């Protein structure tokens, strides 16, 4: 169970870091349009690690940190980036496991 606790804690720490970071760079209260390139890269890396690196707890922990960093940003930010991250990493997971049969 210790590994799951580590994932939870890294997710929480990532969430707090993401929340503070997004409040620092976004002064507008609620933005619906636009995709932040930095957040998109972080979300993509995070979700790809979470979906595809179950063999390494360190990579998973890093993945959860990055996922939390984007997912828990200031309300209105990080949603589209998270959705794109989930879709892309899900597609990569399907390609690896069902087409390449790795």
């Amino acid at each position, binding site marked *: *169970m*210790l590994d*799951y*606790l580590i994932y*939870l*804690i890294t*997710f*929480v720490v990532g*969430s*707090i870091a993401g*929340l503070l970071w997004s409040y620092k760079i976004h002064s507008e209260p*609620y933005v619906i349009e636009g995709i932040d390139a930095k957040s998109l890269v972080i979300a993509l890396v995070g979700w790809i690690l979470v979906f595809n690196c179950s063999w390494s707890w360190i990579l998973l922990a890093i993945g959860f940190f990055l996922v*939390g960093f984007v*997912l*828990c*940003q*200031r*309300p*209105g930010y990080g949603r589209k980036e998270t959705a794109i991250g989930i879709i892309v990493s899900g597609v990569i997971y399907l390609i690896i496991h069902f087409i390449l049969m790795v």
Partner: protein
Amino acid sequence: MADILINVIIAFLGGSLLLGLHRKIMARVQERPGPPIIQNLLHSLKFFFKETDYPKTASMPFYVGIIFILAVVWVIGVIVGPVTENSLLILFGVYAIYKIVEHNAGSSSGSPYGKMSCVRAVLSAATELPLFAAIVLVYAPTGSMNIAEIISYQSVHGPLVLSIPLAAVMFFTLLLTKSPYSPFAITKGKDLVTGYETEHFGVLRGFLMFSESVAWFVLCWVFLTVFFGPISIVWLIIGLILISVVTGFINATTPMLSPNHAVMTQITICAICFFATILMIII
């Protein structure tokens, strides 16, 4: 001991995040941006660093002691559930004590809101009826109240949700009752500010929120384990998220019922599901 500590922290962090998600879903359904998912956890932690004050009308040391009893009760819930996979009857006892604690937390503060919530806590004991009926119906096919044995039974005969679905509906009614802003949450109706929690500040409120998060995690875990059988950690997480999303959606679109209506609705759901399940088992 380390296992218990790890599981309690997981239940607290996991329960807080799930309640945060629940709040977010409610906000999105109501077309509000809503707070970040992490907000409920930050809220809980914040109270541990706030100044604790005590109302003049509080009956000490009962007012303080009851909150720690509540936290201990749900830690026992974690031990009986995820740690040892012990008897459902002990969990029923945990829930019964939780209702008593809810009652006493309201009465000990001396606040009129707390006292009204205390009276409603007695009424809301009707939520124990679906829980007890669900446990009885689980015992009927499995012949056991031990969670580990129920899991073993399901690994052979398939998930109980397929053989006794209405018992699962009853248990889900309990989950719905326990979720924040539920139509059945009469002890914390908005007419009572925050009900029995109204006069609890600082560290005491922190422990209250800790207990609520742990309670949510434990009850959802029991529901998924008892009715969906041996499930992997990934499916468990998906299940926990789904329950929080579904209850959030229901709570966002349903008004809070009056105490009489809430109790009668719960008893009616319980009676219909119980007798229908008995019929299903006999036929």
